[in-house]
């Protein structure tokens, strides 16, 4: 059941997690995976796991795997338009071959 698919990766601020997950679900994606991340980009250092008075400054990395590349691009567009003017974030696409998935 191996098939080519796109993996959309979004790295952005943790405060956006809930909202972005809503957008992912609305997009028709069949799933997503989140990992905690820290990093630095054009805006600022965002830490995670450190003692920090507020969690505003840590990142999350979201992977969305889908066979519908257009949908992935559209989803990235929606998220970027809605949030990336004011929030840190990067979005990229990777081509993968899904070997096993319960639903895709």
């Amino acid at each position: 059941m191996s098939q080519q698919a796109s993996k959309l990766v979004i790295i952005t601020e943790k405060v956006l997690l809930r909202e972005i997950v809503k957008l992912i679900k609305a997009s028709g994606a069949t799933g997503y995976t989140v990992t905690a991340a820290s990093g630095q980009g054009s805006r600022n250092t965002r830490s995670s796991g450190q003692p920090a008075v507020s969690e505003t400054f840590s990142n999350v990395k979201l992977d969305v795997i889908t066979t519908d590349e257009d949908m992935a691009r559209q989803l990235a567009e929606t998220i970027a338009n809605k949030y990336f003017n004011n929030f840190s974030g990067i979005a990229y696409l990777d081509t993968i071959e899904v070997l096993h998935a319960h639903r895709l």
Partner: protein
Amino acid sequence: MDALLDFATRLLAQLQSPTLAFLLGGILIAALGSRLEIPESIYKFIVFMLLMRVGLDGGMSIREANLADMLLPALFAVLIGAGIVLIGRFTLALLPSVRTEDGIATAGLFGAVSGSTLAAAIVVLESEGIDYEHWAPALYPFMDIPALVVAIVLANLYLKRRDGSSEKVRIWPIVKESLQGSALSAMLLGIALGLFTRPEQIFEGFYDPLFRGLLSVLMLVMGMEAYARLNELRRVAHWFAIYAAIAPLLNGLIAFALGYVAHVLTGFSPGGVVLLAILASSSSDISGPPTLRAGIPSANPSAYVGASTSVGTPVAIAIGIPLFLGLSQVVFGT
């Protein structure tokens, strides 16, 4: 003159009190590059423990309190929270090198309340044996929420006017977001439990005895944070640092004055007045930033978090607390 001397003595004593000493210690070791780390989960748990203790105490005392006594202080708390933001809107936010939304957001954070500073104030009051209405910490949300709401509304009005957009700002989601924050919901839950159940034993055997010790650890974290955020503050206009150094004292004095009115009118205790002043003096560190990040997304968090954490909190604790205590002694002669 005597009062000044007394204030100086008090400040010196404060500098040796564990609360302040751990705060300064935290700044110091962070500046020296220490790799000491208080894990985030410990930090979160300590905040829970402190605010649960404050809430339980408040709830148990509300049981026996005359609710009418709370009305005026609560009203004043609302006015102070909103007023601080309005003042900031027409001072800091109008300065040339300050982006208006950054200024408003910063004022919002300074109008809001810090659970840690509140806990520090309670410990100092109790160490000095000064009585206060134990429901006074429950004024927290009455000051905190209006400040955040007003800041978000003002900022969005400004941005809308500027950008010609027409989205409406809805207030209820901001209030809900504030109430659901971890610090405030721990305190409100504590109040509810103190009010409706019998937590005396657990309060006296667990939450209260650990209060001061856990606060010392939290102060250490706040100190390390203050130093860590200095870098961010340096990247924004100097006005933020200047505002952050002055506002806690000014805001506290305004609240002290209103508290004095409540003292005269309804017998609000001197300790309560001091607590009100310190609530006003404090600037939010836990719940405020995420609420503002969501409510005024275009404001730069480096400005408001930097100002509050690096300068506002140390000033409120190190200068504000002894200042308002000293003032109370002069005014009330206690």
